[in-house]
């Protein structure tokens, strides 16, 4: 299955170290997830700006052509930061029109995330290769959610890697295996919830997306998830202002938290956290089953 990692800086002075500390955590989970990896970083928002993360499914697209298309459509001021198959598009609009344009004109370029703070990367390859390719080590920000994947039931393709996102500034990574994802999908599709893949984690993400669309706060949505989602899971969720961590009642999939005054770090195995500064004085604990943990950096 997988490894999950999460890091939230409680001390703003540490924001600039986010990427530097995250990369060894992610690479430490390579054995759990050698096929593919992903990372969502929540950085300081630029007022009035939306960030859209995009990824081309098959190869490196002509980002100039994409840029031109956006310019021609007169969709406001924007900037395309491209890196191979991946790009972040910064826009002063809410991003919806740009997403729609790309969906229509460049269907092989999938939208990975949208929001004022989130930037999301995922790809196939080893965690170390992906961290290097997208320069995770240079990231700064308040918090981040990462994942290394060993595919269970759906294929090894970038779009099936985690994190999955919903709405704005929301993402989810998952260690475990859900046993009724197809049922959940068939319940949600008639309600207008769109699925991109057959991945079981996406089913969980779309379920939470639905509940939040219906007005539930994250916690209430997760509570309903305990009933609706069957199987084994540790979920790590990133939102605009923080992280949420939850394990199912059987708690077969591992998770460990290291917390100091400066940061809270989460991983599937302590190995990943062993080299964090100050970890020898950190409060170390395992999350209780069926309990939602929150850390925020408002």
């Amino acid at each position, binding site marked *: *299955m997988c*490894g999950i990692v999460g890091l939230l800086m409680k001390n703003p002075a540490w924001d600039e170290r986010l990427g530097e500390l995250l990369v060894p955590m992610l690479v430490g989970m390579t*054995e759990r997830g050698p*096929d593919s990896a992903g990372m969502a970083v929540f950085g300081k928002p630029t007022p009035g700006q939306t960030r859209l993360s995009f990824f081309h499914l098959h190869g490196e697209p002509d980002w100039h052509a994409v840029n031109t298309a956006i310019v021609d459509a007169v969709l406001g001021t924007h900037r395309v930061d491209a890196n191979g198959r991946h790009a972040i598009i910064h826009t002063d609009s809410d991003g919806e029109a740009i997403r729609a344009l790309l969906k229509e004109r460049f269907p092989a370029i999938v939208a990975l995330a949208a929001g004022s703070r989130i930037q999301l990367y995922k790809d196939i390859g080893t965690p170390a290769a992906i961290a290097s390719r997208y320069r995770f080590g240079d990231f700064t920000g308040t918090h981040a959610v990462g994942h290394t994947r*060993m595919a269970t039931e759906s294929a090894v393709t970038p779009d099936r890697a985690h994190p999955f996102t919903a709405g704005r500034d929301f993402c989810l990574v998952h260690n*475990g295996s859900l046993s009724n994802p197809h049922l959940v999908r068939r319940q949600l599709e008639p309600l207008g919830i769109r699925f991109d893949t057959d991945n079981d984690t996406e089913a969980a993400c779309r379920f939470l997306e639905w509940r939040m669309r219906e007005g539930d706060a994250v916690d209430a949505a997760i509570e309903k998830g305990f009933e609706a989602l069957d199987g*084994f899971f540790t979920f790590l969720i990133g939102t605009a202002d923080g992280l949420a961590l939850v394990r199912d009642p059987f708690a*077969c*999939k*591992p998770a460990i938290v290291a917390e100091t005054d400066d940061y809270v770090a989460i991983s599937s195995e302590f190995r990943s956290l062993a080299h964090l500064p100050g970890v020898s004085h950190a409060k170390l604990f395992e999350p209780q089953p069926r309990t939602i943990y929150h850390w925020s950096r408002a």
Partner: protein
Amino acid sequence: MTHPHLSAEESASFDRNTIDYIQRASATGLYEIRGLGAKRKLPHFDDLLMLGASLSRYPLEGYREKCVTKTVLGTRFATKPIVLDIPITIAGMSFGALSANVKEALGRAATAVGTSTTTGDGGMTSEERNSSKTLVYQCLPSRYGFNPDDVRRADAIEIVIGQGAKPGGGGMLLGQKVNPRVAKMRTLPAGVDQRSASRHPDWTGPDDLAIKIRELREITDWEKPIYVKVGATRVPHDVKLAVHSGADVVVVDGMQGGTAATQLTFIEHVGIPTLAAVRQAVDALEELNMTGKVQLIVSGGIRSGADAAKALALGADAVSIGQGVLFSLGCNSDTFIRKGQHIDATADYAAIGTKPGFCHHCHTGRCPVGVTTQDEVLEQRLEVETGANRVKNYLKTLTMELTTLARACGKQDVHHLEREDLVALTVEAAAMAGVPLAGTQWIPGRD
């Protein structure tokens, strides 16, 4: 006197067996438990045929033109792979399900033909370790009898996720077979109905299996091959995950695979036929570029040299036999052998409510021929040396058939059999095995 016309139309849906099942459930309030494997007709190797020599392919002569059967298992990481003389092994069956005499007989037979036996859900007996030159030690969810001394004296470790008869279920042994010796080995009170876990106690999922496999490697100083055995369900995913987790060998057991006791509902309704499982497993290894690096053993209804040949042709590196060797020892025979004489056992079959050819009553512990019993009287009906000879003969026959077929297809080595040596008799078999329907170029479901 007039005789009324007897009208006797049987329902296919509510046939005699089904009526029997409903009436039994009504009488007892408990699901039926039985032994052996799926009995209903399923697509199987019988639905495949081999394309022997012709003008376009030349056969080999028997005897002088050798046909190699040597088989090496566990080359990926282990420093001491398993080297067998034949690609036919004896599958995991527990002491507890089987008597100690049977385990000894199987060990002797395997040693005589140069293959391996496998322990089962009860641990390793000294009879089996001493008689079997190459012994694979199972690590099951129950961990009955599992201990480091036996890990160290095993030749390979087989981590059992599940078996074909009951994928998703744990082991089962009813109280009548939990005699003092079995009870001691399994750390159970004598005479209780054994409940077994269906999940391993200290890991769940392939990511944690990877760590468990590493632990077993560390304990055995990386010498011994680690097999991972699954009951055939989601075969492509399971085989790939077993590879990712670090297995040296993957064992896939189809739904025809046997057990000494489990719920009937499991046996007949869970898992896929061995024929379908083989091809999926082979394709999964090919997709990961692991063909030849991670070996594949296939089991579940392997009966004959033809079955073995077809499984190898489809891409298996070896086959494993459970039920077949039990039949060889006398299971479902109307007699048992004592000092060379055949002694009728029909009455004992009747006493447990069955007859030779129809018996699947391993769970009762009253095996009329002394195979699946712990009863001190009954177990004497299986003479170790006699049994060993019979299994040896059976395995030799299988090997001869296998090499005969391989030579007929022009192969100097049974591992050179390939899927193009096969065609199918039915559309189902063609689709499952991924080989053309005989007389056509058509493989349903493949371009």
